[in-house]
């Protein structure tokens, strides 16, 4: 293990997140089994007092979870100089077999944490705890995933060995690698562009319809959720080429570096905000008929829709601006 300050911070934050989320999940089991708002029992009143505290603590903890993703990526990127062959975070994550699983788990957990925060925010705004059981059931899914993330991330850091010769992003995201990233990189550019702009168009149009009429909520949530992987694949398939102005460089990590103005951070942050907001809209649709949420949910869903639209427009805006501005010509 390399005792880099950021690694120590990430490991400690992960341990803290795991402890708090497991404690929250343990409390959640009590809520799911024992919650009865019609009862005035001592246990029920204690649960009512504790849930406010627990959910507040978890809210802060999960904000740390979201922040830790960007610290993880930044750390992986900044450490590439320690490994022979690595040119960016892509190589650092490849130094052992736990790097990419840790990253994927972190992305998944950030999305789930965002959804939990939305759910919790809505539940706390109603006076009769309408989503409390579902909120803690969701935590029962999230907590083991956070534990898994901590284990995989710790394995990744402890197995790191500076003597290892790793692969650079050029080979990991090449057209002939035979791996999933290579297959994505090998997608036909026109098809990738068509897919990217179609899903973007569908998300924006259904989002606008939903924002102003309250219709097509499911379609918006689905297309907004779909845009996240589509945009990721599109970045590798063709967007990256416009940023690097090279016909063969398709790395999704090099844009996080200074040479590219750290533009990858706002790009990926926009994608994450967009997918969380879009999925959040769909997550809340089944609860529109709960009377205590009737005045709250439409407002929250409209805000989430606006958040998603702005985030995806930011992503698309930066991307299209680069495509227009650069001298690089991919398609005639």
């Amino acid at each position, binding site marked *: 293990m390399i005792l880099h300050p950021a690694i120590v911070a990430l490991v400690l934050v992960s341990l803290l997140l795991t402890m708090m989320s497991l404690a929250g999940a343990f409390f959640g089991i009590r809520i799911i089994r024992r919650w009865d*708002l019609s009862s*005035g*029992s*001592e246990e*029920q*009143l204690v649960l*009512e*007092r504790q849930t*406010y505290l627990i959910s507040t603590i978890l809210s802060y903890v999960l904000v740390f979870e979201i922040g830790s993703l960007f610290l993880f990526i930044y750390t992986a990127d900044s450490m590439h100089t320690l490994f022979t062959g690595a040119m960016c975070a892509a190589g650092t994550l490849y130094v052992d077999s736990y790097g990419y699983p840790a990253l994927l788990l972190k992305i998944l957990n950030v999305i789930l944490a965002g959804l939990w925060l939305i759910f919790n925010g809505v539940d*706390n*705004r*109603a*006076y*009769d*705890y309408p989503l409390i059981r579902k909120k803690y059931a969701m935590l029962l899914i999230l907590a083991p995933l956070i534990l898994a993330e901590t284990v995989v991330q710790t394995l990744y850091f402890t197995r790191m060995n500076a003597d290892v010769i790793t692969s650079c992003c050029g080979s990991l995201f090449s057209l002939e690698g035979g791996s999933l990233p290579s297959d994505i990189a090998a997608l036909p550019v026109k098809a990738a562009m068509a897919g990217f702009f179609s899903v973007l168009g569908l998300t924006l149009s259904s989002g606008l319809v939903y924002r102003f009429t309250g219709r097509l909520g499911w379609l918006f949530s689905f297309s907004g959720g779909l845009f996240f992987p589509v945009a990721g694949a599109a970045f590798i398939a063709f967007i990256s080429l416009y940023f690097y102005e090279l016909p063969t460089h398709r790395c999704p990590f090099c844009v996080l570096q200074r040479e590219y103005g750290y533009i990858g951070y706002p790009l990926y942050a926009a994608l994450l905000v967009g997918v969380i907001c879009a999925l959040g809209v769909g997550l809340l649709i089944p609860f529109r008929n709960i009377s*205590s949420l009737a*005045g*709250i949910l439409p407002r929250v869903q409209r805000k989430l829709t606006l958040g998603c639209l702005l985030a995806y427009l930011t992503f698309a805006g930066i991307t299209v601006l680069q495509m227009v501005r650069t001298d690089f010509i991919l398609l005639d």
Partner: protein
Amino acid sequence: MIKLSGIIKIFNSGRTNEFVAVGGVTLALEANRVTVLKGPSGSGKTTLLSLIGCMARPTSGRITLHNGLLSGKRFSGIGEVAEVEVTSLPERFLTEVRRQTFGFIFQQFNLVKGVTALENVMLPAYPLGEKHDTVRRRALDLLEMFGLKARAAARVEWLSGGEAQRVAIARALMNDPPVIIADEPTAHLDSKLSVDFMEIIAKLKAQGKTTVIASHDPLVCGAAMVDRVIAVRDGRIDGEGP
């Protein structure tokens, strides 16, 4: 109506100094009535009042405010409701229910020293965000109602005991609450002022207010406008009188 179901309040629960202040009270307090909780010191009257007034939460049991008390009241996040169960409400909702439903008169009056009588009366209205002029006008009207308009600009430490008490009553009425909660209101008053206080309570009753008073003062318990006297002893209901 204020309905209490199986209310228990235990302080320092599970510790060696555990104390059961209220030991299982089930009670219904009718609207537009004057109810007195009567009992010796330490009997649990004040604890019961603080639970009714949503200033404390019970260890177990539920308290429900029924329609009649809540007519015309609209709580943000809850809406206009016929009844509301207050013990399960998160604090952010409970604060508004407490602010709009109850006016409190304390044994020591608890006026804020260093500011005027008028400013003391205006205080409960500040969180509601009304226009300052509207609040000021209403506070002056209340002071006038209690014959204190001339003392509006006087600091509260300059007021006599009777004046201070009437300022405290005016403050309790500032947000036009349907329920007045008074804890030993005559404890520091002589007989005449105590009688004057009960006359004010009679006027409030005539205006449709519901009043709950904790007291062991015979002048209060025996007053003509009192509809119900509930004896409290050792945290339990120990009988009832007219």
